[in-house]
């Protein structure tokens, strides 16, 4: 089955791990209990005896293993490496937490097979890595390696280390071990760094301590024994335990006797109340230990509590002052708010009063109610809208402002329409045409004058006859003038309806005749009287300027622009 998987990160949490940890913890507990028994239960005969037995046995086994390894190394010609080998095994034990009881046989097996210390150490390191990675026993791995070194590779296939039969057949032992080293390098170290590994290291340390104590006990018993040998060790141990037990009993009896003394016993009885569970010194030691613990821990806790209380007090003071400041600020804000409200009320009243005396508004209202033309009404309405809009903007009344703006636009459009009617561009005529028509009109009037028929000459006095003659001559002159000089500029003669006839005078003669007519009250020679009346009034220049200025003001007031601009 395909199993191409790369684990990037893992955690050692399986059941097996827990079991290993439990086992290691149990071992540690046992060893620690043994150590504790050495000190805490020193007066217990059975405990002393049991621990002494265990320690002595462990020390004896260790010495036996050391001697066997040394003997084996001597036999294969490696006697010079005995001390370095012990150091190497001790280092492995403390580094990887594997008991020397396991390491020594494994190393011995490899040393016998290879007869080379360096190769043995290399293979033992490899065996430890394989064991840590695969979970196989160190002994099983070293057996397989030692056999493989001697040419029997079968055991290696059973380890399940990824070696195929083809590999084992084709590759040398050196190549195989190199491949295994590449595959499992660092496994033992990694396992030792786990919790379980650390417990194993602790456990081996405790076992080592037990062995050391056991060695000391053996030496002591040797000294105590008569022959200086270990033959009578067991008997001596029993004797020692019995002696300790008897001593304890003796102490208890001594205390009992002491308590039975009437005065002294009662005085000293408090010293022996705890005799059932230990000696008074135990109590003293316990109290001292608790006091020390108090000194170290309780004192620190109290100091921290005092510091915390101080901080809390400071914090409370700060909070109180802050609250006071906040309250004062809020009061100040409330007072300012009241003042502002009063000012707002006054401003409102003032605005209402201003409205009452709003002259411009009153004028506009009055103008709107008076009789006006449509254009003037539109102008007044527009002006009123502007005024009201300004007021609405000042008051901040947006709704009214929008309404007034719409009204203003409507009035402006209305005014524009009205002004469009008044100032139609179609009404503007060609000024030259009008001038020509005026000239024609003048010509017609003159022609009428020229066609005035002379009155009958029978009723004239000689003077009147003379005037008549002069007028006739003047008419004739005018006729000639018209015929001669203005024929090309006037309309055809037929269009005037008649032909100019008569005479005309000019120069001093004409003036004289005019004066005569004025003096006599009628035309010279009794013709048609033409009265010329001038409408309007004759005024001085100053009055004229004043009138024009007033007119401009009136135009401006009514909204008609009076500006003048020209381009030169």
């Amino acid at each position: 089955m395909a199993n191409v998987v790369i684990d990037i990160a893992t955690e050692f949490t399986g059941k097996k791990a827990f079991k290993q940890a439990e086992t290691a913890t149990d071992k540690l507990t046992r060893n620690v209990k043994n150590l504790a028994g050495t000190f805490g239960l020193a007066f217990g005969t059975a405990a002393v005896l049991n621990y002494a037995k265990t320690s002595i046995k462990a020390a004896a086994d260790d010495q036996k293993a050391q001697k066997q390894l040394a003997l084996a190394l001597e036999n294969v010609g490696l006697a010079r490496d005995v001390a370095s080998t012990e150091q190497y095994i001790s280092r492995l034990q403390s580094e990887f937490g594997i008991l020397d009881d396991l390491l020594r046989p494994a190393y011995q097996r490899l040393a016998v097979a290879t007869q080379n210390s360096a190769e043995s150490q290399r293979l033992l390191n490899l065996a430890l890595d394989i064991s840590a990675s695969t979970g196989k026993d160190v002994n099983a791995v070293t057996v397989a390696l030692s056999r493989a070194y001697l040419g029997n590779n079968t055991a290696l296939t059973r380890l399940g280390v990824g070696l195929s039969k083809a590999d084992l057949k084709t590759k040398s032992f050196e190549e195989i071990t190199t491949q295994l080293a590449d595959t499992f390098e660092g496994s033992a170290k990694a396992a030792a760094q786990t919790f379980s590994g650390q417990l194993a290291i602790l456990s081996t340390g405790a076992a080592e301590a037990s062995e050391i104590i056991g060695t000391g006990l053996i030496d002591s018993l040797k000294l105590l024994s008569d022959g200086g040998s270990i033959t009578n060790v067991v008997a001596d141990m029993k004797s020692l335990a019995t002696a300790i037990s008897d001593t304890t009993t003796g102490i208890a009896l001594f205390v009992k006797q002491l308590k039975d003394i009437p005065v002294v016993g009662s005085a000293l009885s408090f010293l022996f109340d705890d005799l059932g569970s230990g000696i008074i010194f135990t109590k003293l030691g316990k109290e001292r230990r608790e006091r020390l613990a108090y000194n170290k821990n309780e004192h620190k806790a109290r100091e921290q509590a005092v510091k915390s209380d101080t901080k809390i007090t400071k914090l409370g003071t700060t909070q109180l002052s802050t609250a006071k400041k906040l309250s004062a600020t809020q009061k100040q804000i409330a007072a300012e708010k009241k003042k502002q409200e009063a000012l707002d009320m006054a401003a409102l009243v003032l605005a209402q009063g201003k409205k009452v005396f709003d002259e411009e508004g009153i004028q506009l209202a009055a103008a709107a109610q008076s009789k006006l033309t449509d254009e003037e009404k539109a102008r007044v309405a527009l002006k009123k809208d502007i005024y009201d809009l300004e007021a609405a903007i000042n008051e901040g009344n947006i709704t009214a402002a929008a309404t007034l703006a719409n009204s203003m636009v409507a009035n402006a459009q209305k005014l524009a329409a009205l002004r469009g009617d008044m100032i139609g561009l179609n009404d503007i005529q060609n000024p030259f045409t009008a001038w020509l028509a005026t000239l024609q009109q003048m010509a017609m009037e003159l022609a009428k004058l020229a066609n005035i028929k002379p009155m009958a000459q029978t009723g004239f006095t000689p003077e009147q006859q003379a005037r008549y003659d002069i007028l006739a001559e003047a008419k004739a002159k005018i006729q000639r003038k018209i015929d001669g000089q203005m024929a090309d500029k006037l309309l055809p003669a037929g269009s005037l309806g008649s032909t100019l006839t008569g005479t005309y005078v000019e120069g001093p003669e004409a003036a004289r005749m005019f004066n005569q007519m004025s003096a006599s009250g009628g035309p010279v020679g009794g013709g048609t009287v033409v009265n010329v009346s001038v409408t309007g009034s004759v005024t001085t220049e100053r009055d004229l300027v004043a009138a024009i200025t007033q007119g401009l003001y009136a135009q401006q007031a009514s909204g008609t622009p009076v500006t003048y601009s020209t381009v030169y």
Partner: protein
Amino acid sequence: MPATVKGAVNLRKSLREFTPDLAKKLPKEIGAALKPITKSAKGYLPDRGQVLSGWLPRQMSEATFPAYDPRVVKSGVGYKTTPSKANSRGFRSLARVFNKTAAGAIYETMGRKTPDSPFVKNQMAKSGGVMRGQGLMKGRALYRAYDENNGKARVAVLEAIQSAARRLNDRATVRG
């Protein structure tokens, strides 16, 4: 050799219970670290024209040897960020990349033990992928991509786990 961390499974549980946002963020960060490997590995897998014609899928299954369907093989390369069950030695995988199809595994490792196989020779002659890696972790696709990643993914995964733990502790710490 994968990196071993302690308490990561419990960290995932705590994140899920107390900080759901971080619990969702952690797999994303781990996935972002692993994705470059799977992407490269898919790129190293041959396409239809690069494998032997007899290895390609046929209309009817004629043999038990797994056929190489490029689409299926490439879809079989991926990653997982959920903790696995413990293996026989008690290790739980926290993050892993895989090439799970049989044909993909064959292309990954073929010739590692039998370099003189005719199948291997013919396939290599048609499209020879380079093998990278060491020992059992030597291959043409996933192992090669992992080897060329130079441990960046591993570092990123560990940093993501440590970062999540730190953020969880920061939030859980009561400051007074």
